[in-house]
């Protein structure tokens, strides 16, 4: 547990979080590994987990009719993977596909949701960090949509 706590504390997402909250978070955490090519999660399946990537790279893939999946982003070391665990219907909207061997901390989404409901201060601390991450990704997506390298 001490080792998990240290690893989670080093993750930028949880930087500066209150020690008491950290104990609650660690109670929902476990180490996981995925081999290159494996799916971390698949679109349409229950989203019960939230990942802190420690090593490796995961492609976020989107379904595209009459085409292979589209890779819309990659998530790497120090980043978080997955928001769908937080909000109903708790279903993955994308595929998470390991591009390399991946080591991560998996946080049980149900466990963390329950603790956030019980302790709104923890909930606020987690949501504040998630919103910052969502804002950053939204910003990056807007930039991506500009298609700045097109010839037009």
């Amino acid at each position, binding site marked *: 547990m001490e080792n998990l706590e240290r690893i989670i504390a080093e993750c930028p997402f949880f930087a500066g979080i209150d020690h008491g909250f950290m104990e609650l978070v660690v109670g929902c955490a476990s180490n996981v590994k995925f081999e290159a090519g494996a799916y971390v999660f698949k679109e349409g399946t229950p989203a019960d987990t939230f990942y802190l990537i420690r090593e490796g*790279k995961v*492609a976020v893939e989107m379904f595209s009719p009459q085409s*292979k*999946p*589209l*890779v*819309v*982003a*990659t998530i*790497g*070391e*120090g*980043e978080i993977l997955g928001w769908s665990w937080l909000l109903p219907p708790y279903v993955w909207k994308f595929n998470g596909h390991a*591009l*390399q061997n991946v080591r991560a901390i998996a946080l049980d989404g149900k466990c963390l949701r329950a603790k956030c409901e019980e302790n709104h201060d923890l909930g606020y601390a987690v949501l504040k960090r998630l919103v910052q991450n969502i804002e950053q990704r939204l910003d*990056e997506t807007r*930039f*991506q949509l*500009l*298609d*700045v*390298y*097109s*010839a037009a």
Partner: protein
Amino acid sequence: MMSAATSIAVNPMTPEPYCVRDVAKETPDTFTLTLNPQNGNGASSFKPGQFSMLWVFGVGELPISISGDPAKQDQLVYTVRSVGKATHALVSQKAGSAVGVRGPFGTGWPVEAARGHDLIIVAGGIGLAPLRPVIYHVLAHRQEYDRLVLLYGARSPRDLLYRKELAAWARQRDTQVLVTVDYGGLSWRNHVGVVTTLFKFARLRPARSVAMLCGPEIMMRFVVRDLETHGLNRNQIYLSMERNMKCAVGFCGHCQYGPHFICKDGPVFPYDQLAPQMDKYEL
């Protein structure tokens, strides 16, 4: 006999004849041309970041940044994206054909002032071309510079320039090369996302860094914002502006950008000089 550099100083409006030695395809629409002077002298010496006016006889003249190694004095190298009639004519030249070259013109990247510092190079699309001479220079004078961090973004894997060199640069000491594309196919195993997403993985030391940026202006705005968030001051950030250069010597005014003539005062500027113009709509 007068050297090429001297003759340009005397009459910057007169093109020197150069011979196309090679045209190499970089991407489906981008080519690298290697030119040798026809007069038997060495090529015009240049500073990283400078550009030339390339004359395609019977078609027109184009401002193109020099993308070659400044230490190779027998040639001039340009990477050109074919987007219109004149650029298409330029990249369609065959080995042995002649083009006219005026220049080099403009300011260069501050490679001398950056000695002893880390270099953060951020390039988007064909914006890597004007920065490649900086990379050549730094790698040739490696002991004079600290860390070299190159962040490079392109539209898709097939739009990446200099792929073999990117891999070779990444193997150099104290050099970090991070590459991303906006749209990756399933066979792409590197980053997908805009170039600013690479900052999360870059080993930056903002206080001792000089940043050099080249790419679409909108991209550079996003990058500047992130560099400032990381703690770089505006006078540590340099941008290369690509505007409508015609005469290249500050006579015609086509490239005027607020109080600056991009061709003469630029194309490389410290960001603190450009910030007032970059915040204006429709400029």
